[in-house]
């Protein structure tokens, strides 16, 4: 009886929500104007900016919730809560469990992003639909004309778990700590980007203002403050911990690392040093994390009492478990699963990650003599591989394939970019075979090539399909399949012993600049392919300074043009990732492309 009733209700709810969501989407389409000007305008605070002091009690619960979420904004305001509702719980299935609660020790949406953002909060929250950041723990962030100077105003009246007040100097100290963590192997991308801040000339004129000066103009600096570096760790607690651990530090294990490890297993330390909507209640590194609502969150009462993050085993298991009702929030990252979820009418909050499916070509890392150096080979591979076959074989036709580094439908796509993308060699097995023949005749190369690929589903299928197509063109492919940590990373990064590798840059709106620079800049330490071309370096330089979305589009299109000419790697798809949410969970806010803030979320009865 009960289950029938439940199903009926659920069906009705889903139906209603889908209807609501569709309606909302249409609205979005209209309002997301193409020429949104300068980034970083705190969208909500415009009106009540004059009186920031008593902001704390002023119905702030409703504030950020209306950015791009499914539920219509005015309803959210009505339905929040007066105080934490006992017994409300979000069971969240993660993509991969996190080791660490420390922002310097975890990275991105896939590993721990959502867990930690709900504990630390962020200065700015990135809105992927509009490409701008909105104030969160910061009130505003304003750049100067050439984006070399950024003025940050933090919200006043925020206190850490241990009672300390959150002051502007903390932002700088926290960022410095982040910068110092580089090389510890945890979050290099963010740490590297923090390096663009010129700390010597950065000023803290008063307790609520930071003036960041950058080494170079960077128009999307605001995204950094929505990423891990924007999560502020009380520097006084860190200083104290560093003192305590200084005695235990050895040459091999730094005090900073010991502090991070200690924080990973000691919730009290994390709670004392943070001011986000939730506190860590229980933690088992790499297994599960349980968060509980913080009593005195600056953003008003936190409605949901508890969030438990656990790991069912894979994206497919996440979806199955969500369907079976074990979870009311599940992170998904598999096109087949997304197709299923859409068919089932699940409420999704997801984002396409550009350059999600990619083949790297080794072009002579550390001076190696590899065949990938020869652009004819890279061209031949482009001619030989049919993206649709990969799609059909590995993804049942559900993958969003693309030949562009910004796929159609994502924010930075433009017709110019597509035009350049289309100039890259397309599927033409005869041309591929001819090129391979030519190179064989010229160099005496026997056609052999090593393809390295991760073995997580559907990795083996991708590798097999690619192997088949390349061999038809005259290549002789050897495939090395294995786990990311034991095969892919050692082969590609450590030994650089590969010729072609399945990879992904996963560039979303917030990480565009850093991810393209890291992977393609000739001087970058994370350039795995030894790709180097002055045109590319120049095009990448433009990215930093692009003033608005239009300029960014133009800059990315320029990168695409060089890409299509030089073929550093072969893009074949975007990767969708995001959250499936039970229809009764409302008010979940994005704090980055696929990082979710539950501070203002609530569960409807």
């Amino acid at each position, binding site marked *: 009886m009960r289950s029938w009733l439940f199903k009926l209700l659920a069906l009705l709810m889903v139906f209603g929500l889908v209807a609501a969501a569709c309606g909302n989407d249409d609205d979005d389409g209209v309002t997301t104007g193409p020429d949104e000007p300068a980034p970083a305008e705190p969208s909500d605070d415009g009106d009540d900016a004059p009186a920031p002091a008593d902001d704390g009690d002023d119905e702030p619960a409703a504030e950020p919730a209306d950015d791009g979420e499914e539920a219509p904004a005015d309803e959210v305001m009505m339905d929040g809560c007066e105080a934490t509702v006992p017994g409300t719980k979000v069971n969240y299935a993660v993509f991969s469990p996190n080791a660490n609660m420390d922002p310097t020790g975890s990275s991105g949406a896939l590993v721990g992003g959502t867990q930690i953002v709900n504990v630390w909060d962020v200065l700015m929250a990135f809105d992927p639909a509009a490409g701008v950041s909105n104030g969160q723990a910061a009130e505003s962030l304003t750049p100067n004309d050439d984006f070399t100077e950024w003025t940050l105003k933090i919200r006043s009246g925020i206190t850490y778990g241990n009672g300390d007040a959150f002051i502007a100097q903390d932002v700088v100290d926290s960022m410095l700590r982040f910068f110092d963590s580089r090389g510890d192997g945890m979050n290099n991308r963010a740490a590297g980007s923090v390096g663009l801040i010129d700390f010597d000339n950065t000023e803290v004129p008063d307790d609520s203002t930071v003036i960041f000066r950058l080494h170079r103009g960077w128009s999307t600096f605001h995204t950094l403050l929505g990423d891990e570096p924007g999560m502020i760790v009380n520097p006084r607690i860190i200083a104290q911990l560093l003192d305590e651990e200084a005695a235990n530090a050895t040459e091999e294990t730094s005090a900073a690392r010991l502090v991070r490890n200690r924080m990973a297993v000691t919730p009290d330390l994390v709670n004392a040093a943070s001011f986000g909507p939730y506190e860590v209640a229980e933690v088992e590194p790499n297994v599960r994390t349980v968060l509980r609502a913080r009593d005195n969150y600056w953003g008003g009462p936190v409605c949901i009492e508890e969030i438990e993050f656990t790991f069912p085993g*894979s994206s*497919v298991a996440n979806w*199955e478990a969500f369907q079976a009702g074990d979870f009311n929030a599940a992170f998904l990252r598999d096109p*087949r699963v997304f197709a*299923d979820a859409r068919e089932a009418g699940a409420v999704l909050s997801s984002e396409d990650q550009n350059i999600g499916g990619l083949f790297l070509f080794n072009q002579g890392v550390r001076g190696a003599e590899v065949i990938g150096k020869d652009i004819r080979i890279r061209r031949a591979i482009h001619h030989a591989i049919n993206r649709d*076959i990969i799609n*059909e*074989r*590995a993804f*049942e036709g559900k993958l969003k394939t693309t030949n562009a580094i910004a796929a159609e439908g994502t924010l930075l796509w433009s017709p110019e970019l597509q035009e350049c993308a289309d100039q890259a060699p397309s599927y033409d097995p005869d041309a591929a075979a001819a090129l391979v023949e030519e190179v064989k005749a010229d160099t005496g190369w026997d056609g052999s090539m090593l393809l390295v690929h991760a*073995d997580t*589903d*559907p990795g*083996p*299928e991708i590798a*097999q*399909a690619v*192997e*088949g*197509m390349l*061999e*038809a063109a005259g290549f002789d492919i050897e495939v090395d*399949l294995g786990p990311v940590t034991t095969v892919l990373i050692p082969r590609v990064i450590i030994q650089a012993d590969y010729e072609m590798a399945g990879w992904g840059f996963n560039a979303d709106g917030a990480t565009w600049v850093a991810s393209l620079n890291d992977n393609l800049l000739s001087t970058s330490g994370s350039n795995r392919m030894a790709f180097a071309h002055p045109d590319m370096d120049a095009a990448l330089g433009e990215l930093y300074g692009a003033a608005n979305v239009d300029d960014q589009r133009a800059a990315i299109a320029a990168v695409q043009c060089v890409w299509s000419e030089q073929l550093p790697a072969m893009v074949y798809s975007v990767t969708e990732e995001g959250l499936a949410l039970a229809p009764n969970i409302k008010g979940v806010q994005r704090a980055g492309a696929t990082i979710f803030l539950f501070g203002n979320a609530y569960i409807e009865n």
Partner: protein
Amino acid sequence: MAVDTALVPDTGYVAGTAIDPLSHAQRLIRLAVGLVGGTAAVIVGLMVLTDVHAGYRVLLTVGGLALLFMALDNAGKLFRGPLFETGLWLSVIWVALIGLSAAFADFLPFTESRDASVTIFEGTPILKRPDLFSANPLGTDRQALDILGGIVYGARVSLQVSVLAVAIGILVGGTIGVVAGFFRGRLDTGIGILTDSLLAFPPLILLLALASVMDRTPRNMAIALAVLGIPTYIRLARVNTMVFAEREFVLASQAMGASRRRIIFKELVPNVALPIFSYAFIIIAVLIVAEASLSFLGLGIQRPDPTWGNMIAAGQDDFDRHPHLVFAPGIAMFLTVFALNRVGEKARELWDPRQANL
């Protein structure tokens, strides 16, 4: 501890002495009903009702097969006497069938079932549903590889690996066991401690540890599985040697001054061999499962060599949407393990003297 080892499910099964009250005429009627009804149900289930929900077709087919089994059972009892074990004979037939098709897989007319690169240009559709009277009777997988072919080639790999492992196990374990059982004393104690140490690892855990060190080729897998089986064989051989060493004919030849080597090779080995061999079927079954479990965890033999384990592992994420990816190799494995267990138990009943006096 008792002789039985971690590997062998000691079942203590006593073959049921069937009491059969059915008359000749009743049997004939049942035979006829079973044959006709069963065949009809299977045909209808498989061929006629093509547009009915798969569940009903499966139900009908299984019901038909049960009826056919009943008919066969009656036929067997009718013509070969009331002690005829139909299940056993069917098991023998199945094992033979799997063995033969694995041996002659290269001559069977499967569409491509191993090399995915071939299927790309062949145009076989991917994820084809099973259709018994098509080129892909059990459907195709995500790479458009034929599943029936995969099962047969998988049987080849699984059988090769586990038969090789059992052969190594018998050779190495058997030799050590006979030596230990014959010479006793310190040597025996030493071997006992080694055996105990190997048996101290829960079987799958030992296999995991081995698999994490080795390249996952069929040959290495056979060696790892052999390591798993060796202590079992040592214990079996040792105990049987001890039993036979006390028997009159051995004592007599000892009294006649036969050399030790002669006693071992002429008197003991031939007698010990049979009970050891009688365990081979059951151990093969256990090893097939062990290999499959390892493949399932992603630590066994890798594609393109299909094994039942890696076929199931590859299909598990699609199980819900494409059940045949798991059911086809799963059922093949189940039937084979079942049949091997059944045959193996009969073999033990016949050839292991200790089994008889239990």
